[in-house]
């Protein structure tokens, strides 16, 4: 790995509710190099989206507490002033969200919404930003860009809206693109189109990508490394192929086998018993212990760090790890 672009250390996020602070995510550590593609996978409540939004401090500030460090090229994003943060957002780090129906402003036209970041970050004039917006629409393959640029979001299909969202994100050629469930609201064939587009843009622009998804298959087709999250913590980090060859954490294992297979006629699917614990009722030790088929006596009360597992892998479980060393 070359230079560290992003280095997240002990990130923890909690939200204020009317019953006090509730922890959403903790003990998140990972790094990202230039040109890397990292996938973050987890089920609902795993904290994957919370993690993603924290990288740019996009949670409502009033009722969010973020601890730890998010080092972007050495500078801690969590300590930046508002102005510095705004300079970073959209220019160096950009984001694509789920559900393009709600992520585009319904009363502004496409030209305005794409052009805005160009005007802010690159000081473009209205006319220049508009010309660039048309080019960007071309780049994300929206036909008839010169005309569509005047459209409003509701005039576009779901797939097209997500393309516009991507155009907005890549407008300033960011170094890092964070894509949070970018295709979840879309049909399978459109999903394939969008992922293909992201793949090409990543190659063309040389940007790093963090792809967040609940779909392990989707992530595995796109990312080099995968971080699996469960109940607010990363529990396994591994290169994609290695993860599928031998998942080290029982949860990763269960998750992979629970995905219905497209290639065989199974009559009963393997399952993980029980359900994900609520953030307020997470077990003290290993959070997966109550559902784990391999649980041992001390699992429920031992708090484990991520353990070094060789081959660039780390796991929060002792099952397959002999030499118990925490990741540095």
């Amino acid at each position, binding site marked *: 790995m070359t230079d560290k672009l992003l280095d997240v250390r002990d990130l923890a996020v909690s939200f204020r509710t009317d019953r006090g602070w509730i922890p959403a995510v903790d003990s998140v550590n990972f790094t990202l190099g230039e040109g890397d593609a990292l996938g973050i996978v987890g089920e609902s409540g795993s904290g994957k989206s919370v993690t993603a939004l924290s990288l740019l401090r996009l949670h409502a500030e009033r009722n969010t507490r973020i601890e730890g460090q998010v080092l972007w090229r050495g500078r801690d994003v969590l300590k930046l002033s508002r102005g510095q943060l705004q300079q970073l957002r959209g220019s160096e780090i950009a984001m694509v969200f789920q559900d393009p129906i709600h992520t585009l402003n319904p009363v502004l036209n496409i030209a305005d919404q794409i052009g805005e970041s160009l005007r802010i970050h690159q000081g473009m004039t209205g006319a220049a930003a508009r010309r660039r917006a048309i080019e960007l629409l071309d780049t994300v393959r929206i036909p008839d860009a010169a005309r569509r640029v005047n459209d409003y979001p509701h005039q576009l299909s779901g797939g097209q809206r997500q393309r516009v969202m991507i155009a907005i994100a890549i407008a300033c050629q960011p170094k890092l693109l964070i894509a949070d469930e970018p295709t979840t609201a879309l049909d399978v064939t459109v999903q394939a189109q969008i992922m293909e587009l992201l793949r090409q843009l990543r190659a063309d622009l040389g940007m790093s990508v963090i792809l967040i998804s609940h779909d392990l298959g989707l992530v595995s087709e796109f990312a080099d490394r995968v971080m699996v999250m469960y109940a607010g913590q990363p529990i396994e980090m591994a290169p994609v192929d290695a993860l599928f060859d031998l998942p080290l954490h029982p949860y990763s294992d269960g998750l992979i086998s629970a995905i219905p297979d497209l290639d065989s006629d199974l009559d009963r699917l393997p399952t993980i*018993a029980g359900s994900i*614990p609520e953030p307020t009722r997470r077990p003290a030790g290993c959070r997966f212990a109550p559902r784990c088929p391999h649980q041992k006596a001390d699992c429920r009360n031992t708090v484990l760090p991520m353990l070094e597992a060789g081959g660039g892998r780390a796991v929060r479980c002792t099952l397959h790890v002999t030499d118990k060393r925490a990741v540095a």
Partner: protein
Amino acid sequence: MTDATHGVGAATPGPARVSTNSPMRLALRRLMRHRSFRVGLVMLLLIVLLAWAAPWITNGTPNATSVRVRFTPPSLDYPFGTDNFGRDLWTRVVYGARVSLWIGFTVALLSAFFGGIIGVCAAWFRRLDSLLMRIMDALMAFPAILLAIGVSAVLGPQLSSVIIALTSAYIPRCARMVRASALVIREQDYVEAARISGASSLRIILRHILPNCLAPLLVTLTFVFAYAILAEATLSFLGIGTPPPHASWGNIVAQGRDFAVEAWWIMLFPGLAISISALSINLMGDGLRDVLDPRLKIEG
């Protein structure tokens, strides 16, 4: 049960107990934590308490005149002073609370009741919808106070006509609110499920639509309560509301208006009473809306 238990451990059987976490209870608990709701509630309770205790804390005769003590400024004997007939204003304002709160509350309740029925019917029986809603539109075309003035003029100055006038002004507002909620609820899957099971319209309305409309209706009702107190006072002030000699805050102000400079206390205290009551109920309404239905938009 003080702390709330959310979610249930999956297949592990829980303790054999009846759940106490009904949505209503949860809402109530959150309500009690809501600052402005608590403040409003305490204020209103205090006013209600005073009104209830009127015979014991006042001289008990709001209409007793006494020429000797006309225009007495506030003093220990007469905390709010006396008016041009020498009537004790403290007594009149406290008894006035009975009239104002009673009218306001009755109006709110009746409007919510009839508005609720009309709203649910319009939402469920689609054929009635456009007729009912055009009538409501026509009534809504008039600002509430104007409609109330018109109806009140027709019915003459009596307590009941004030109630009818204000109720007819607020029914359309409640109806619109309930209809909007009911239209959303009727599209919910649980209504579809009931229909698939062959449930009758009446059953669906009573068991599914109405209970789920209650929250927005309650919020609306609270605001109508506050508006109605203001509107009753306005009508009484204009001389087409609560008829004298009933002490109503509005007509005490009207009466004090002519002596506003020399005997400012006559109009000051009832006006404050109106403001404080409306304020406390509005505070409660804000709390209810925040907890029950934050997206609700109230039309005044």
